[in-house]
């Protein structure tokens, strides 16, 4: 029985990953748009660099920004849309009739997509960054911990998104919720601008928010600004946020479940 239970989750990942590959053309277009964004960021920061001095210099900024694009493309989820679609169409009854919790199923569904995005988007962006944009590369140890930290970042992003996705049960709209979450997340996590450029007091505030561990934390490992025990501190901080957000997500679902109606059909 024990063996059977874990194979359940592997099978979900396997099947959804296969489903994701059915959208290869879609993925290719999304990769193209991700590359356009990457270049956009590159030239914006190049322009900023040429109009004045950036603390730490251009090389450091661009390595940070490209690492941010790698992280945000891999630790990416559309949980709000996944839930919202099903709530609006009423097909959520299919997820709720099976002997698996909605959160667990959604998690492995989104994890499979994240894995797909990692291969189809994050890796190509890393290669482009290293070969064409000449960013700094981490050593082997930091590369390993970077990947681990991206995985933890995915968990934080997922749990946060799952909590906000529960709003769908009240609002019945998901797109606006996802856009809002994404915007806030990009702004506060380091994807839009490096957090180390912020003044100290503001930086302290940002560091207390869950968004910091969604991108800035793994980026620090990539850029080698965190080494040795600092890495463990970062991973530990991510795990703490995962635990906290797990409880938030769990109670958000408890509340949302009572709001479920699915009338008719």
């Amino acid at each position, binding site marked *: 029985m024990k063996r059977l*239970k874990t194979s359940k989750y592997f099978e979900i990942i396997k099947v959804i990953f296969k489903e994701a590959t*059915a959208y290869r053309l879609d993925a290719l277009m999304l990769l193209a748009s991700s590359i356009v964004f990457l270049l956009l960021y590159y030239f914006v920061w190049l322009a900023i660099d040429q109009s004045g001095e950036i603390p730490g210099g251009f090389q450091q900024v661009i390595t940070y920004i490209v690492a941010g694009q790698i992280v945000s493309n891999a630790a990416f989820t559309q949980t709000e849309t996944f839930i919202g679609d099903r709530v609006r169409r009423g097909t959520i*009854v299919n997820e709720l*009739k099976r002997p698996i919790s909605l959160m667990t199923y959604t998690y492995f569904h989104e994890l499979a997509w994240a894995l797909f995005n990692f291969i189809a988007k994050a890796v190509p962006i890393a290669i482009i960054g290293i070969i064409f944009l000449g960013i700094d590369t981490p050593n082997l140890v930091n590369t390993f911990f970077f990947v681990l930290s991206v995985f933890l970042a995915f968990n934080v992003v997922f749990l946060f998104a799952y909590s906000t996705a529960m709003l769908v049960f009240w609002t019945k709209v998901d797109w606006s919720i996802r856009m809002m979450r994404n915007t806030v997340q990009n702004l506060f996590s380091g994807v839009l601008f490096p957090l180390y450029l912020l003044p100290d007091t503001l930086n302290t505030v940002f560091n207390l928010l869950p968004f910091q561990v969604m991108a800035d934390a793994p980026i620090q490992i990539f850029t080698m600004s965190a080494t040795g025990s600092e890495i463990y501190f970062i991973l530990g901080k991510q795990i703490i946020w995962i635990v906290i957000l797990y409880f938030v997500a769990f109670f958000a679902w408890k509340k949302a479940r009572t709001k479920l*109606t699915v*009338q008719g*059909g």
Partner: protein
Amino acid sequence: MSLIKAENLSKTFRIYNQGEGVTDYLKSFVTRDYREIDAVKELDLEISKGEIVGYIGANGAGKSTTVKMLTGILEPSSGDITVNGLNPYRNRKKNAMNIGVVFGQKTQLWWDLPVRESFKLLKEIYEVEDDNYDERINEFSEVLGLDEFWDQPVRKLSLGQKMRCELAAAFLHQPPIVYLDEPTIGLDVSVKEKIRDFIKKMNSKNDITVMLTTHDIDDIEDLCERVIVLDEGKKIYDGRLDSLANKFSSRRLLVDLKDVDSFSLSLRGVEEVKTNDANVEITFDREKISASDLIKEILDEYEVIDFKIKEPDIEDVVKKMYREGIA
């Protein structure tokens, strides 16, 4: 002992009123105007092992809402449910292992994947052993003909093919109870027959209890010994089908006439005559008067352009129950 038991079960929905126009819409952000609708009202249910129970009623009678409460998807507003010894809402996952469910209008298969992948995933989710899985898929294929489209992506399947898959999926883990919410909706006669054969076989071979909601009178007549009739959330009949049989014998005859206005008819067995713009709708009891006799009578007296006989639907049955009283 009863396998499914519900006592005093009620479900109330709040319908929020958004009103009309921009001002009403903006107002709805501040004041939440709502009315309450009783989808299910003080319902008692008791179903024993091995029964096939037809659960019928007009659209919006509360059938699906009941099924969603019995499956643990919706929380009852009040009342108690015990299914196989469990409270389905509080033990949703445990209860899910004991039940199979088909929601006829909501396919559960994975759209972009071949049928086989959907079943492999369901096999893991329901923790079905390899040997049992192979055996059952073979057995199901014989009746439902799954092998015809086993390797095709679900999105390419016809409605009938999809429904055959849904049925197989519901019985895959051989649960003691299966709820079928409109499993034959929109299907042609040959697929309907396949599905009924399959349900019968599963019920007789494995003693699986089936609760079936449908709008198709033939489903009921073919499968159920017992029916429960629901109207506006309340149970109006619960008993054997045969003592209700005369309620199912209504047929409707539509006659296009040259001159509608002068039409009048009074014959034994004719229950209702409704005059529309260009045709007349006659409800008659086929036990009392045959369609051919009725048509002959009309042809003798009026100039008929066209006519057709309509199969009865559940709405007619419920109407007739009110008109004539129950059994």
